[in-house]
């Protein structure tokens, strides 16, 4: 006979306020196999856990049911607690009396009945629990970082400095991401290139880091400690092992293309380095626009001009497969395509209505205008500049509902740069709020005000051209009057959205995305850099809009998590995996066909049946690969394969207990 102990938590008033704890305790006493019931103000607290440990000894309990918050919250905590007693940590069931009972119901009597049902279900299930034991799997101490922006670079550097090999994959021809496009960074106004390019060079030269630019992740299988990743090295038609980066080919290449890096405000050649400080500082050929490769002409000048003979037009994509112990995803963001959403701001027909990144390129010394703020339309210096904030952000109807966090600060920076670089310029900033939630942020904003930036509280409703000027009509909600400003140039601070193609990366890594397509972290507050897939971590804006300090902080956090895994020789596996009863298994192979992790394989085994030695095909589970989803168990008609922790018998007991 098993001796079950039931511990009902008040959770302060979170549960006790709605659920009648005394009644639940009373009812629990009469449930099958229950020999001891106790309630506690805070079961997850130190004294709370100690009370359970004492009760286990005093009442010789062997199964525990805890009525408290969601198992997703404190199941690990209570399992660790049980590990220090002589009860197996898996002889435990938790009834969710908070998130799914007291917090969501108001009627005290009905909520209490539901709480009693939930406890009865947990008591019924725990009766069928088995002791489970973890087993260990080897760890490949090599990390993969997807995305070569500042987040990816920082994570790679931290892991590499810890002594582990890292593969840094970037789909663009160079590391740097968005940060390297910026001119200055708030609040210290130090030059973005000066702090970002050294990191890129460090990453490029670090002995432990293998930089793989113009590459994309093609296929991921396996699990924490043993990810089998295939990377597609896109054809670059230039042999980087021989190329010295002398740049002759770039000069000679006849076909000109708009440069993505310069946000379309300058040109590049078909064979190009995105920007001078690119890492690796070696060109690649853009096959779509190269006259030889897209078949429009013979050309091949770069091949003839190249002193080292690095150009090879027959280059093809290569697939490189390797095993990794952990993966950090740092795929970053891009700016929302405001032109297709905001027709009222001209929908892109006015060349002088630009977005934040375009302004950064204008004001950047190595940008198309060598740092002079000149209007894209006629190259003149604009005397009056309007900056419009929250374009696409905080606008659930047309754009995105969320706030993109960083634009308030870089809008103030842009205003500061306009006033500093253009003498007696006028700068208007249309805003809803000014959010300066960072160290020295508020001081930076007040200095911009002192510089003379005019902050107008209200959205811009319309921008149209009138005799050479861009008329921005809006409203000043503080004075209640409509406002119209004639501007020479308008800068729209647009919303951040996830980088294109993030769906593919998420599906490959089996991680989910939230409503706005940002990658879903395991827990917004407690596990911001982890995902639900063990061994896969997040860093930077791919997890949600943030500024550079937070991005770098997350990058180092995910690196720490990776090093945590690599610090151990072996990893403990999840014991709640499938197990086959070979007596019942007829070898039909349905389960092997269903398993997403290829954890099940059919094997011939020797048996003695009615005195005759025979070999028979049965199903076997690889405990390292199995993640415990149970899809095979529901597909096995005789129930020969069962999922420990969620066995058929356990769930049937729960269903029966519920329907009493």
């Amino acid at each position, binding site marked *: 006979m098993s001796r079950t102990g039931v511990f009902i938590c008040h959770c302060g008033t979170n549960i006790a306020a709605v659920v009648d704890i005394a009644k639940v305790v009373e009812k629990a*006493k*009469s449930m*099958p196999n*229950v020999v001891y019931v106790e309630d506690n103000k805070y079961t997850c607290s130190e004294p709370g856990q100690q009370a359970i440990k004492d009760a286990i000894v005093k009442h010789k309990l062997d199964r525990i049911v805890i009525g408290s918050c969601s198992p997703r919250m404190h199941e690990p905590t209570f399992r660790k607690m049980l590990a220090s007693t002589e009860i197996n940590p898996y002889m435990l069931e938790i009834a969710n009396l908070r998130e799914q009972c007291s917090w969501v119901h108001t009627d005290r009597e009905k909520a209490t009945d539901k709480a009693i049902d939930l406890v009865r279900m947990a008591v019924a299930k725990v009766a069928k629990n088995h002791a489970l034991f973890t087993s260990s799997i080897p760890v490949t101490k090599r990390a993969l970082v997807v995305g070569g922006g500042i987040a990816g670079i920082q994570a790679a550097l931290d892991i590499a400095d810890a002594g582990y090999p890292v593969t840094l994959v970037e789909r663009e021809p160079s590391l740097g991401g968005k940060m390297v496009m910026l001119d200055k960074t708030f609040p210290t106004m130090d030059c973005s290139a000066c702090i970002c390019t050294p990191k890129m060079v460090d990453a490029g030269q670090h002995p432990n880091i293998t930089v793989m630019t113009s590459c994309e992740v093609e296929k991921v299988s396996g699990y924490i400690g043993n990810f089998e990743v295939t990377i597609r090295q896109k054809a670059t038609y230039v042999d980087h092992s021989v190329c010295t980066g002398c740049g002759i080919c770039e000069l000679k290449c006849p076909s000109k293309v708009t440069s993505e890096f310069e946000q379309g405000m300058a040109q590049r050649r078909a064979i190009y380095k995105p920007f001078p400080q690119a890492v690796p500082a070696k060109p690649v050929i853009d096959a779509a626009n190269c006259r030889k490769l897209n078949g429009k002409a013979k050309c091949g000048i770069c091949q003839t001009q190249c002193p080292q003979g690095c150009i090879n037009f027959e280059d093809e994509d290569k697939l490189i497969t390797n095993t990794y112990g952990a993966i950090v995803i740092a795929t970053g963001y891009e700016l929302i395509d405001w032109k297709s959403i905001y027709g009222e701001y001209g929908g892109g027909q006015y060349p002088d209505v630009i977005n934040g990144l375009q302004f950064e390129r204008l004001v950047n010394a190595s940008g198309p205008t060598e740092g002079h703020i000149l209007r894209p339309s006629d190259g003149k210096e604009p005397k009056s500049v309007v900056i419009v904030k929250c374009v696409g952000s905080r606008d659930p109807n047309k754009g995105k509902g969320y706030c993109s966090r960083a634009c308030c600060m870089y809008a103030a920076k842009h205003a500061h740069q306009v006033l500093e670089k253009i003498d007696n310029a006028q700068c208007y900033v249309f805003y809803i709020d000014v959010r300066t939630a960072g160290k020295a942020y508020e001081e930076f904003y007040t200095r911009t005000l002192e510089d003379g930036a005019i902050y107008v509280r209200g959205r811009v409703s319309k921008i149209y051209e009138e005799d050479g000027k861009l008329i921005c009509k809006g409203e000043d909600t503080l004075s209640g009057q409509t406002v119209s400003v004639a501007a020479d140039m308008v800068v729209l601070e647009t919303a951040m959205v996830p980088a294109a193609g993030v769906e593919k990366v998420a599906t490959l890594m089996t991680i989910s995305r939230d409503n706005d397509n940002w990658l879903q972290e395991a827990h917004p507050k407690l596990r911001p850099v982890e995902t639900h897939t063990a061994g896969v971590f997040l860093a930077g804006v791919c997890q949600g809009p943030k500024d550079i300090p937070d991005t770098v902080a997350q990058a180092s956090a995910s690196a720490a998590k990776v090093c945590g895994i690599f610090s151990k020789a072996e990893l403990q596996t999840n014991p709640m995996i499938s197990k086959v009863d070979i*007596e019942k298994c007829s070898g039909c192979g349905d389960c092997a066909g269903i398993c997403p992790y290829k954890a099940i394989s059919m094997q011939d085994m020797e048996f003695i049946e*009615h005195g005759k030695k025979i070999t028979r095909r049965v199903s076997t589970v690889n405990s390292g690969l199995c993640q415990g989803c149970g899809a095979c168990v529901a597909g096995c008609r005789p129930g020969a394969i069962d999922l420990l922790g969620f066995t058929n018998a356990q769930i049937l007991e729960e269903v*029966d*207990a519920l329907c*009493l």
Partner: protein
Amino acid sequence: MKLSKSKVNQALDMLAKEATVLVPMIVDGVSKFAPWGTEGKLALDIVNTLLPPKDALFPQTEKMYKYKVSAETAEVKEITDSDKQVVFGLRSCDMHSIDCMDAVFLTKGYVDNFYSRKRENLTTIAINCTKSNPTCFCDSMGVDPNNAASADMQLIDIGDAYVVEARTEKGKAVEALWQPLLEAGEGTATPISCELKLDMAGLPAKLRGMFESDIWDDGYQACIGCGTCTYICPTCYCFDINAENHGQEGVQFRCWDSCMFSEYTRMAGGHNPRPSKKERLRNRFMHKLAYFDERYNKNLCAGCGRCVVNCPVNIDITRFIEKVKEVPVNG
């Protein structure tokens, strides 16, 4: 005294006032003994029903004990209620089934009180057969189709009426109840016998010596191991005991089981003394024709032919009996 056939319904209504009267009926296309009053066609003319009347005494699922457990106490209550029943239109082969079950459940030092209570409350009214199916062979098995000796009352079909012969107290009580309907008059029915004749002389003893004979090596393979033959056989009485739990309370019940099922003799650890269909079929035939006779000296096979008709792969006990005959005595 005799009861005219036109008054049978009235007679049944009278009986139905005090007891559940089970009569042979076709209900939803299935011939079985159903309580008088269910929608369906009274079928006194058919030789024997698909489902025998054995479930009046030995239902397919019978609740035995009800129990309730709480932290301190546990109470168990035997489920004993069983109301009065009358089986009307019983054939001799069905009566033989009741005789065999009586021997098993009531004699040899152990009385099954679930069965005995039902048996005390049961009145059997047999009707003699006026024709036999080609698969009937009851007279070869020591059963007289014209007269069910151990029935409480025997009705003899004389064309338009039944001669009433009450034999026991219960029979006389029914006769007294039917007094207003009965008329004077006697008559005898022309005795009938089965077309299919089998020579059962000395067979049980011979069969007991043939456990290792190679007669068993053929004829079993077609069996699909289903429970049809045992569940429609009037004399099969094997049962399994199981429980149905409902939270803190539950019921223990017994239910029919079949020796033809593969897991009937499977033991803990997976050992099965009758691993293949050969052993199981041998066990069934031996039980019907040899073992039962050794213990209760009467055949467990009533010769009703139900299994011969309904076996999906036509495993035929009569052809087996003929084959046993051909085996030389020391074979």
